[in-house]
């Protein structure tokens, strides 16, 4: 396919879509699908056929519409007017079709003016819930692969890297390493072959950002990776996805086939001299394989265990060759940066954290779901405004950001801006973007115990501090939780946290004490009140 053919295909798709008076988009990402959205799609199809409206109504599957708590969701675009239906059942289908072109069904309508929708700014999720993730033509129509055309036909690899650098984009996997710098390092590294790897081994409890992007807009990731391959001089890419994401894998496979069919992957992409191949590798359920060196070892076919860095993958990665490894979200951000220019991107966010970030809201929060906001948004706005606050009239207690590697942030810190530096200062991390909200009923010792158990069982077993240190930490937490511990145990726990954090080999171990340390920092009373020799009477754990 040449650039002209791609653009013609995009135009044809746009024409086709304009020809339809009404578009009904049924969310077919994992959340709504688990609530039966595919049956609703079938029912809508049947009803439209029954009424003979096939020529004016387009019923299509779309990706994640965001507000998972209100699923199954159906979006409606009628004569340019947009609306959203929530908690749609098969019984509602006849009415939904009946009312097309008239006022929407009030009882099902979910206002698009609520802060959940109004306050978001979508870049990574711009196509989520808009296009059918299984049709490459819709991605074309939404401006897809335009950035690739621009990169391959207008820009030198160094210019692509320059644009990514200037955009201020930082790694969305959690650590926030400047993406442009990483790309430049791989580009400069010497090696007979180079690789591009996408880390889609999202394993934090309560996180589903990468999953949603892959399920809703897989071509975006592929496009970002091809551009990266061109920029750093790689001709082979791997997407490492966890096997627990079957729908994401299926859609990604479909997308790769489609891209290959259109000549966007393989030899001589878009008629240029650049070649790039992409393969999927499945993770077998080890959390630690999200750690980049363990992930690379796993791709090579060995047991996924981290190795010391340096050498960093940029220098010596897959099979010892320079390897660029980025997260799903990072690759997904590259196409819009090239399409709209780095100036546009760097104007969004804060001084040091540019752009937007996708967060998965989970736990005791009203609007469970997926959101995208500019960096620097206040934590309070995310939880209370967009998230709708804590349900059932309960009081907010803390939010865990960054998964098991992150920390708990209390009420008093809610007015801080969400960016890499502020979160680290507060004792947590950005992580991949999971946010678990806890209400007043949550015991912080419980929370710390839960995450420590997670880290303990997900430790790879290589280095001593992480392997046995986390197990001892868990034992001490159990003892405290059971009301059997004394002050000395708490002191020992603190010492252990320090050891595990300072001496562990990889990020998993180094950050494993974060949940304990942050809850101890902000909620130490909950620990001491459980001690046998603590102040006051021992309180029973809730």
């Amino acid at each position, binding site marked *: 396919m040449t650039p002209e053919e791609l653009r013609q295909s995009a135009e044809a798709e746009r024409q086709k879509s304009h020809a339809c008076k009404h578009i009904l988009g049924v969310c077919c990402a994992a959340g709504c699908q688990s609530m039966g959205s595919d049956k609703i799609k079938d029912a809508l199809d049947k009803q439209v056929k029954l009424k003979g409206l096939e020529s004016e109504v387009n019923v299509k599957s779309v990706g994640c519409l965001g507000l998972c708590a209100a699923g199954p969701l159906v979006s409606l675009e009628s004569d340019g007017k947009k609306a959203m239906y929530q908690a749609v059942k098969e019984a509602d289908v006849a009415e939904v079709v009946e009312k097309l072109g008239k006022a929407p069904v009030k009882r099902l309508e979910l206002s698009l003016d609520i802060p959940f929708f109004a306050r978001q700014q979508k870049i990574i999720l711009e196509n989520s819930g808009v296009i059918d993730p299984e049709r490459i033509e819709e991605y074309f129509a939404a401006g897809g692969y335009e950035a690739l055309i621009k990169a391959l036909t207008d820009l030198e690899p160094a210019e692509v890297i320059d644009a990514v650098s200037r955009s201020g984009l930082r790694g969305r996997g959690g650590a926030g390493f400047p993406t442009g710098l990483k790309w430049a390092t791989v580009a400069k590294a010497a090696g007979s072959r180079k690789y591009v790897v996408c880390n889609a081994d999202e394993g934090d409890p309560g996180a589903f950002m990468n999953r949603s992007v892959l399920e809703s807009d897989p071509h975006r990731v592929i496009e970002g990776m091809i551009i990266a391959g061109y920029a750093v001089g790689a001709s082979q890419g791997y997407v490492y996805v966890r096997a627990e994401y079957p729908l994401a894998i299926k859609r990604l496979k479909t997308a790769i086939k489609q891209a290959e069919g259109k000549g966007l992957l393989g030899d001589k992409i878009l008629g240029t001299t650049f070649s790039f191949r992409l393969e999927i590798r499945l993770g077998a359920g080890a959390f630690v394989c999200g750690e980049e060196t363990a992930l690379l070892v796993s791709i090579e076919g060995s*047991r996924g265990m981290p190795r010391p860095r340096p050498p960093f993958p940029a220098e010596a990665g897959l099979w010892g060759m320079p390897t660029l490894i980025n997260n799903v979200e990072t690759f997904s951000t590259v196409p819009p940066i090239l399409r709209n220019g780095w100036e546009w991107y760097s104007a969004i966010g804060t001084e040091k954290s540019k752009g937007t970030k996708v967060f998965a809201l989970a736990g005791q929060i009203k609007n469970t779901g997926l959101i995208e906001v500019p960096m620097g948004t206040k934590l309070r706005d995310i939880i209370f405004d967009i998230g709708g606050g804590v349900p059932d009239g309960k009081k907010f207690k803390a939010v865990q950001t960054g998964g098991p590697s992150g920390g708990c942030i209390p009420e008093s810190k809610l007015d801080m801006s969400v960016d890499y530096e502020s979160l680290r200062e507060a004792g947590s991390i950005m992580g991949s973007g999971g946010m678990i909200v806890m209400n007043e009923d949550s015991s912080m010792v419980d929370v710390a115990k839960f995450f420590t158990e997670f880290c303990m069982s997900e*430790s790879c*077993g290589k280095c*001593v*501090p992480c392997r046995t240190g*986390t197990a001892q930490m868990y034992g001490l937490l159990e003892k405290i939780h059971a009301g059997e511990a004394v002050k000395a145990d708490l002191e020992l726990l603190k010492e252990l946290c320090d050891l595990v954090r*300072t001496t562990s*080999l990889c990020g998993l171990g180094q950050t494993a004490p974060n949940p304990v340390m942050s809850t101890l920092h902000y909620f130490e009373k909950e620990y001491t009140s459980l001690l046998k020799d603590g102040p006051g009477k021992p309180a029973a754990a809730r």
Partner: protein
Amino acid sequence: MAATPVSTEVVTLKLNDRDVSATRGQTILEVAREQGMEIPTLCFLEGLTPWGACRLCMIELKGSPKLLPACTTKAAEGMEIVLDSDRLKKYRKMILELLFAERNHVCAVCVSNGRCELQDLAQKNGVTHVRFPYRYAKYEVDSTHDLFRLDHNRCIMCTRCVRVCHEIEGAHVWDLKGRGIETEVVADNNLPWGQSESCTRCGKCIHACPVGALVEKTTAVNEMKKRSGFLPYLTTMRENRP
């Protein structure tokens, strides 16, 4: 002997305030040992690829907020390194305590008693007692091999056996199963050692093992003498092969 042109770049650095020189590519551990300066190690064994897992050799590098493992950190120009601060000593002690509490190390009945690297390090680093509760988990003793025995109770997961078998003997009998605290060394695809078809009965793993986990049968308490000096020799031989 014909002089082969070797491009060696020399760097100078400080170890505990002592000025030392090193060739580029040498690790901090190699440089320190050359100087007769001690850094405790367990998973490291000269002649095998460094593994960086026991974390006993962690050192402080001036200007770096993180501690670094001496066995895998390369010497570089101008480095200022501390090998034995109070903080490092405290961590080393804790790591040793964690190892003792992890499995069932009972020196009094161990064939390696008096010849054990873990025991030696504990003595040298002042581990007089263990503050962590012993886990007392049940482990198996594999005596199915006709010459050797594997006692999981005494294993410290240093993987020296795994590496020596893979890198030197080339048989790759040993590997790991399980995750975290449940990780264990296994022969072949988790077979009793005696049924392993890949084992060449060379005994290298026995001598690479720092503790009493891999031993020769028919040894009694204190009788298991280990020799691992052949390793650097073998490695050098292979590297210098014409």
